[in-house]
């Protein structure tokens, strides 16, 4: 498996993603600097967390004008698997590759702690089975997923919701602290219509080794490897 990790000026979790995919999973992975125009024959692309362009104006708003982004758009249109983590998710919505938008957390503060998500639908990164509960960390200030009622209806109709925040036991009672940012319908991650692009706020790459607390996050990358192996 060959994975390109996009590096915008201001990305700061690029090392986290490279380490998880290359050193922990053992795949071939490298940085794709934002000024480059090709992804170097990658099988999959990860857009990591961070503050691309300082997150000025809106998180991820300015990153989409970098040269590398046209290569990422082409890769997406050809059905290539793309994982946007945290800032990467924000960039993908600003690019229009994913529906909705990520807005300021409801409590208006940066939030960094472990949370739980439930796998809602199958896909290249989520073949571990519906209902599976994963413990993953979040670290963001603008993670509140928003979309119009019509978009929400389509997301459910096309099984595009990948993860929803929940408690340790997998349920999501109204108003429970399980939802760290007030996202609509407790949404933590969504796929596009063709189910090849996934954006999520939690950080699987920061929960990919037992020494860091738990390795539930590694299951996303293992799912990706199985998906690519099967192709």
């Amino acid at each position, binding site marked *: 498996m060959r994975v390109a990790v996009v590096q915008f000026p201001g990305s700061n979790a690029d090392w986290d993603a490279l380490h998880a995919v290359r050193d922990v999973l053992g795949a071939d992975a490298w940085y794709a600097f934002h000024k480059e125009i090709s992804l170097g024959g990658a099988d999959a692309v990860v857009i990591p967390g961070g503050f691309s362009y300082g997150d000025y104006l*809106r998180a991820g708003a300015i990153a989409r004008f970098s040269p590398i982004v046209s290569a990422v758009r082409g890769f997406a249109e050809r059905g290539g698997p793309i994982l946007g983590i945290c800032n990467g998710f924000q960039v993908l919505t600003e690019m229009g590759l994913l529906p909705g938008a990520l807005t300021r957390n409801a409590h208006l503060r940066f939030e960094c702690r472990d949370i739980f998500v439930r796998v809602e639908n199958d896909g290249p990164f989520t073949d571990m089975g519906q209902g599976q509960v994963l413990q993953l960390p979040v670290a963001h200030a603008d993670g509140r997923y928003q979309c119009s009622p019509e978009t929400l209806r389509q997301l459910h109709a096309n099984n595009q919701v990948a993860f929803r925040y929940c408690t340790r036991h997998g349920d999501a009672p109204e108003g429970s602290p399980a939802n760290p940012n007030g996202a609509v319908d407790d949404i933590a991650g969504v796929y596009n219509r063709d189910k090849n692009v996934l954006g999520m706020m939690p950080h699987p790459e920061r929960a990919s080794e037992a020494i860091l607390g738990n390795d539930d996050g590694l299951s996303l990358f293992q799912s990706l490897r199985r998906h690519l192996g099967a192709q």
Partner: protein
Amino acid sequence: MKANIFVTLKREVLDPEGDAVRRSLRSLGFEEVKAARVGKLIELELHGDDRESAESHIRSMCEKLLANPVIEDFHYEILD
């Protein structure tokens, strides 16, 4: 030439920052505050003085970058 661009959240989008401002103002004794919404003011200084072309340029700046159409509206004013 100068232009002021106002980017505001769409009506139906929850505005926690606006809520926080309303609650804080009321707790400071400004009971008359019924509602508050927080948006962005972007002040631009532009070369040239042709209002028509400025108008269309500003519109496309907003559509391309300054506002996120999914959740934000924009309006602007041009000052000589």
